[in-house]
């Protein structure tokens, strides 16, 4: 193993341990935890055996293993950006609705109207 593989595997192993310890402590395994653990395991396999990524790239018609990673990261970034932007918009609308509710229900009524007084 080269230096990069040592560093990456150490980081991945630590992250995987944290995920597993959390799952064991909570005694519950939902799909999100399973997905995160699967991602870390897949990352570890790719780091230890870079040839797998290259073979996968060739299988689906992409030239280099690095290219498939760029495509996956780019698509994930775009999807994540849209997801968080729509979440942000929804949250903003909820805050707006709540603020509006408070403003309307705490409206201060005018004591007199000058228009009434004048006419």
């Amino acid at each position: 193993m080269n230096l990069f593989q040592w560093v990456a595997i150490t980081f991945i192993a630590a992250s995987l341990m944290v995920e597993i310890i959390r799952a064991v402590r909570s005694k519950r395994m939902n799909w999100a935890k399973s997905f995160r653990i699967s991602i870390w395991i897949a990352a570890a396999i790719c780091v230890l055996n870079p040839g797998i990524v290259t073979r996968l790239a060739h299988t689906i018609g992409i030239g280099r293993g690095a290219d498939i990673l760029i495509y996956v990261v780019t698509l994930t970034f775009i999807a994540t950006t849209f997801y968080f932007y729509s979440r942000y918009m929804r949250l903003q609308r909820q805050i707006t609705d709540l603020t509006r509710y408070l403003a309307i229900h705490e409206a201060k009524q005018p004591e007199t109207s000058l228009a009434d007084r004048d006419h």
Partner: protein
Amino acid sequence: MPAYNEAARIGTTLQGLIHHFRNVVVVDDGSKDNTFDRLQELPVWALRHPINLGQGAALQTGIDFAVGHGADIVVTFDADGQHDVHDIERLVEPIVAKRAEVALGSRFLGNDAVNMPTSRWFILKLGVLFTRVCSRIKVTDTHNGLRALSRSSATKLRITQNRMAHASEILDQIQYLGLKFEEVPVTVHYSDVVLEKGQQNSAAVKVAAQFLLGRMVR
């Protein structure tokens, strides 16, 4: 009337309105100064957003409140004193006469933009072009805060753009909902304070981006 940090001039702006109209609703949009305290001294309905949301949000709050209290016609009016209270009577006329459901004030139908800088004229004309392309609605003034809405149109319109893009969104919805509208010539006074606190020309791109993003992500 939406208001943000207008303590110094809200009284002057409201003077004309409160002598002519019985129900004036002002929404303090989370001002940091004592705008809300000033409002409570005046004979107006005073609403307050606990946090600052933007002019679009404040307008929708005021419209909801007015409709909820039985208003037949809702008029929106800027707090910075740029509008003329005497224009309101002519503005609501198409709605009273049932020719239109929405009346839009326009500073470009006569020679009614007093002291308007040339750069502002150019930006507003670009706004007209942008609205014509994006919303396919033919108007002469897209960002005029003086509008009148019939009760039914005020109920149908829903401003989701909290900040300045609400003006484009209102026009977009008028077109989408097929509301009958009419433009009415109104005067806009560009005093130093209006220009100082109002939208900077550079904000036009941001407003357009907010509007387009809002249409893409609902």
